[in-house]
């Protein structure tokens, strides 16, 4: 080959490699999405979350999300969702995760705390970037440390500390509490946190009864009779889905909500379903500043309207948290790009994600706990009130993130027992 020939070949190779650079950037980033598409959690959480993922992924790709997310895709790279069903329990999910991890660049998902606890160590073992978006157990980052796992939703701790603060601020004379919760990790942790928070905030408070019901048992006649006879001032429940609706449908006609102050710490998804069947005065939480608890900002209005227009229902907290997970990932990806990596690899995205602060729908999300892997947000609690034939949430109180979350390095249980010391 002549010198001219070598030069021509070299130039051709160089131009091909330069041309390949944007082509690679245009290859979609595959995001595995895991959420309940069947089973009892599909209706209240799984499907609204999937709808949130799909709507926002589409808008991210089209570049129609408002600032600061207006750029198309993740730094110009489109994203492609691969959605799978979370139903089947932790063992099945671990097998599903191992398959999914081979097919996608990043996994975002998991509503059930049991699934999150099972998936996190497997994600670490497979070195697959995994963003948990909804599950509530604080044990994920309090009992272990992960490099590849992040959670963009707050823990259940802030739901119950905020609920306890709100309840006592408005009813300082409360002397006794009772609980009705589902008998698995979520219900047990929620009750433990609420009970400890109430005892820390008001020493001497008496626990009348703690009913732990079988998940999705649906029939609460005996439990409601026991609660009604208990004489407790406050009844706490972290029920969700069919159990939550069953408690309201069976308890309200019997005067449970009139005779006691009822706190539904995860009651927000029930608002759309039950409406005015939720009696006035019921204290309701949304696991964060979501849905009717979200601040009235342009960003929140954009999301609420886009979701409502597409699905004809307002987004509930699961949809908000799904959206925040994608926005957090986009922010981390683009931050890694700004740090110099045109097509950031997984380690670069992880480095950018750690201790990240980004604007979520509902408010600012800070990856402040779990060595920068666990999010905290403000939390908001309110009271149900029927106005003009429609259920409204009134008297909403927003608690700063550091008021309802433990500081970095402190376990939730110890922090609550210390009286929420920062």
């Amino acid at each position: 080959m002549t010198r001219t020939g070598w030069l021509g070949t070299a130039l051709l190779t160089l131009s091909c490699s330069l041309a390949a650079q944007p082509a690679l950037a245009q290859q979609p980033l595959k995001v595995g999405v895991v959420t309940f598409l069947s089973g009892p959690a599909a209706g209240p959480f799984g499907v609204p979350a999937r709808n949130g993922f799909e709507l926002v992924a589409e808008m991210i790709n089209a570049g129609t999300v408002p600032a600061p997310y207006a750029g198309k895709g993740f730094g110009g790279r489109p994203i492609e969702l691969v959605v799978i069903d979370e139903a089947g329990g932790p063992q099945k999910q671990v097998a599903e995760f191992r398959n999914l991890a081979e097919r996608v660049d990043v996994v975002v998902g998991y509503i059930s705390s049991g699934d999150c606890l099972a998936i996190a160590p497997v994600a670490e073992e497979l070195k697959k970037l995994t963003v948990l978006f909804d599950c509530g157990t604080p044990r994920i980052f309090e009992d272990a440390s992960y490099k590849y796992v992040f959670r963009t939703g707050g823990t259940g701790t802030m739901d119950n500390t905020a609920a306890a603060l709100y309840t006592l601020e408005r009813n300082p004379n409360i002397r006794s509490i009772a609980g009705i919760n589902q008998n698995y990790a979520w219900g047990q942790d929620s009750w433990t946190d609420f009970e400890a928070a109430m005892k820390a905030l008001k020493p001497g408070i008496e626990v009348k009864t703690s009913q732990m019901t079988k998940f999705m048992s649906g029939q609460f006649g005996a439990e409601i009779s026991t609660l009604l006879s208990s004489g407790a001032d406050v009844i706490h429940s972290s029920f969700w889905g069919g159990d939550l609706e069953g408690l309201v449908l069976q308890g309200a006609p019997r005067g449970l909500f009139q005779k006691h102050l009822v706190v539904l710490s995860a009651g927000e998804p029930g608002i759309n379903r039950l409406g005015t069947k939720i009696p006035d005065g019921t204290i309701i939480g949304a696991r964060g500043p979501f849905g009717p608890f979200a601040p009235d900002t342009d960003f929140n209005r954009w999301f609420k309207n886009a979701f409502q227009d597409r699905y004809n229902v307002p987004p509930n907290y699961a949809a908000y948290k799904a959206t925040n997970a994608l926005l957090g990932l986009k922010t981390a990806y683009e931050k890694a790009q700004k740090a110099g990596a045109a097509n950031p690899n997984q380690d670069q995205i992880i480095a950018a994600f750690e201790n990240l602060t980004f604007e979520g729908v509902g408010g600012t999300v800070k990856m402040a706990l779990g060595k920068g892997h666990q999010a905290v947000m403000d939390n908001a609690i309110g009271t149900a009130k029927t106005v003009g034939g429609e259920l409204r949430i009134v008297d909403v109180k927003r608690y700063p993130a550091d008021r309802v979350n433990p500081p970095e390095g402190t376990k939730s249980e110890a922090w609550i027992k210390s009286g929420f010391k920062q």
Partner: protein
Amino acid sequence: MSNVLAVLFDGVVYSSWLFLMAAGLTLIYGVMKILNIAHGSLYALGAYTAATLAGAWLAAGLPAAGSYAMLALAALLVGVVMGPLLERGLLKWMYGKDEVVLLLVTYAAFLILEDATKLIWGVESQTLSEPYSLPGNFQIGDLAYPVYNLLLIAVAIVTGLALAWALYRTRQGKLLLAVIHDREISEAMGINVNRVYLVTFSVGSALAALGGALTAPTIAVSPGIGVEVIVLSFAVVVVGGLGSLGGAALGALMVGIARSAAVRYWPEAELFTIYFVMALVLVVRPRGLFSAPEARRI
């Protein structure tokens, strides 16, 4: 005193609900020797159909009292449509096979029906609270109870008595008892066993659906409600003795009252109650309370 009354009343309400499902399950097992897992799906179908029919009735502005007739109609519809569909379309082809095979077939039917339910009604829950709150409350001591609970108890008692009468006092019932005793001899004597099977399965299906229809006003009708029911019904039927109607009634009563007492006095043990009762009974009577002695064939 009022606490004891509350425990008893809550127990009886729960027992009534359990009995409606267990009666259908034990009837089908007694006649056809099939442990019908799809019973849970028929319960769910009854609940969904009731929510749809009664919901449409109320939405049309018709008298609210008519919604109770819609609940009964829903149970009847599920029995008349799904009973023959499952029995003629599926189970008929499996007769003569091992009981385990039949159990697996009904499990497959359960999974298919669960998905079919989601296909028709989606994953969102359905609510129908009006029939529950409409009749108002009555008091036991300080506690308010919906009058609807009395309706549930009355339906369970009437259903139990009607089944007992039909089985032991009518010609058709005696033919059915003959089939329970010995299918082959019954067939040889000219009894149309296939028709007995069809009627039995349809009645059993209607009972499951009736349980679902009457439960619909008290719960959020949502995917998966049939799963819990099938576990509880099996436990009750095992306590009472497979195939025994009286056993199902007594088993339901024992489980219902034990659960209600546990909820009030020992809530931590509530989940274990039903299995405790079952274990206790099986230790004393391994084939259940009212199981008939089985003749050994030579």
